[in-house]
């Protein structure tokens, strides 16, 4: 476990985010067999999504979209409502918060299901910040599978020639549905950074402090106007592609060996070992998470479905020029 210059309360916040993610995952996954769980990858999510400014732009990986949205300030109940397509969701049942965070929080998600283009949108948001002379940055996250899309290449090249404040993060969980890293990704994602004129580092994606450290370095560079960075966080998808995935395409021994490297358990041990938190404090975090998430989910479940009012078939075009 790396230990960078992070203050203790940051560590607890990171832990809290991981626990929230795990809890949300379990509760929602039981409800929806097609849920794309983040189990085992929470250290990447927490390390990357923690501590961004409201005005920073975030295009999260689709897997982990709700926790990213929550970290950016979105309301849990409304997020669940958005996943359940309820009237009370940020999108009034018209779209899905499981793959698309509310843009109110400067989140960019999938508006159709295509992986890749949102990385370009995030890059453009960083261009807007540069034009405006703001030091807000953009964080663009994609999977090992998504890294093969040409969008990533184009966005990295553009961000580097224009010195845009973008942090590119590859959440490498070593699978894209059934496709293992070896047949999906040639060479190394981190090593591509150099080819595009930016720092490229690989970090242990099961070590939340290592991820957070790398992010801080990259964010500082981005805010300083020095250009983009690339971080590859190596982890493992211990869950199925979705909750009810039969997973007959991979070796369960490998899955087990990664399960034994659970990032939350490891960080909990670190926190108690270092005396940053007691077991009881950690238990309290867990209890709060369970309580809040259960309550938010129950409330969202009870929320009304959208009705004719929410259809908005006449609101596809934004009504008037704002100028």
């Amino acid at each position, binding site marked *: 476990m790396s230990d960078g210059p992070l203050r203790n309360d940051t560590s607890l916040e990171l832990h809290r985010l991981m626990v929230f993610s795990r809890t949300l995952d379990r509760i929602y996954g039981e409800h929806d067999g097609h849920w794309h769980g983040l189990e085992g990858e929470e250290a990447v999510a927490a390390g990357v999504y923690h501590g961004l400014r409201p005005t920073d732009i975030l295009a999260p990986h689709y897997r982990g979209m709700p926790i990213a949205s929550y970290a950016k300030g979105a309301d849990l109940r409304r997020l669940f409502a958005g996943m359940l397509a309820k009237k009370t969701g940020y999108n009034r*049942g018209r779209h899905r918060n499981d793959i698309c965070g509310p843009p109110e929080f400067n989140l960019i998600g999938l508006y159709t299901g295509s*992986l890749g283009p949102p990385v370009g949108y995030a890059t453009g948001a960083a261009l807007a910040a540069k034009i405006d002379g703001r030091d807000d940055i953009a964080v663009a996250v994609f999977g090992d599978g998504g890294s093969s899309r040409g969008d990533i290449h184009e966005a990295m090249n553009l961000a580097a020639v224009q010195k845009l404040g973008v942090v590119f993060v590859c959440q490498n969980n070593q699978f894209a549905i059934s496709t293992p890293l070896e*047949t999906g990704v040639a060479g190394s994602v981190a090593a591509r950074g150099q080819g595009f004129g930016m720092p490229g580092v690989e970090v242990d994606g099961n070590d939340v402090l290592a991820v957070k450290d790398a992010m801080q370095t990259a964010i500082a560079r981005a805010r300083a106007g020095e250009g983009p960075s690339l971080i590859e966080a190596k982890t493992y998808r211990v869950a199925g592609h979705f909750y009810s995935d039969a997973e007959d395409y991979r070796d369960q021994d490998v899955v087990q060996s990664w399960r034994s490297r659970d990032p939350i358990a490891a960080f909990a041990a670190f926190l108690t070992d270092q005396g940053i938190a007691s077991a009881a404090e950690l238990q309290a975090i867990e209890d709060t998470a369970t309580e809040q998430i259960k309550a938010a989910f129950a409330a969202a479940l009870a929320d009304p479905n959208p009705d004719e009012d929410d259809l908005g078939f006449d609101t596809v075009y934004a009504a008037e020029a704002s100028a």
Partner: protein
Amino acid sequence: MTRMTFQQALVAGIAEEMRCDPDVFVLGEDVGLFGGPLKSTEGLFAEFGAGRVIDMPISEGTIVGAAVGAAMQGKRPVVDLMFLEFLGLVMQQLIDAGAMHYYSAGAARVPLVVRAKYGVGPHHGHQYDLHSWATNIPGVKVVAPASAEDAKGLMKAAIRDDNPVLMVEHMALYHGVRGDVPDDPDWIVPLGKAAVVREGRDVTIVASAMMVKRAQQAAKVLADEGISAEVVDLRTIAPLDEDTVLASVHKTGRLVVACEAIGRGSSANDVIALAADRAYASLKAPIRRVAAPDVPVPFHRDLEKIYVPGAAEIEAAVRSTFQSAEAAP
């Protein structure tokens, strides 16, 4: 004859062609051991192995691009694009592929099938029906089976065709529809031929894919009201079987065209343009289009239901063609 689902029929069609032609191969994301999204390639990996059922990285343009390049070399690739929602990632490859035969004065051929799943249904995601874009590409064919039998027969014909073919596979048909499917490996359903799936006298309903089912439901209801509707299943959307469409409209004098895509820019308008030109003298009523509104597909099931044109909308459109007060200025 073997009774099978739409999905099984698609796979059976591919498997037969792979058995008799060593140049046929399958490529796409998760088409191998995993068996394809929604089991679209189930069993092919076990029978033909990794050499002919090839998993690809997530790079749609280059997957189709690689298939185009392989096809130029005489192979007969079948790409599983996963979802039609990804069509926007491969349009450049399709337009190039569609031009190659003509531009090379016949020297190049691109025998390529691109399969894509779409449609509002149980899968609840990746619904966009974008097939109409491809009809505006010269040299490309667009095929949309509505039954298990056609799924197999059109797939076999598409694989044997020497042109790029986009085969759109509606996900609501995938595991829900079953039918008796011929076993003869020589049997195909030719591209470019529509089918009159229900004969009628009073009105023609032109549809494809999932809309054929809805048109048939509507036709049953209308029959009880004394309206005899003929249902034409296009099967091949481009190039259009003009003769079958025109013959039907000449006979019935009325036309309703149904499609799941948004109406604006949709292939339904091609059918309408054909009839408004070449069947004008036979028309007794306005031509009605039953299509999705010009709106992104909404997510909640209740909104989806309002969004997607159903049998009731087709019925209403047909009834309206029998009202005389229509459309006066």
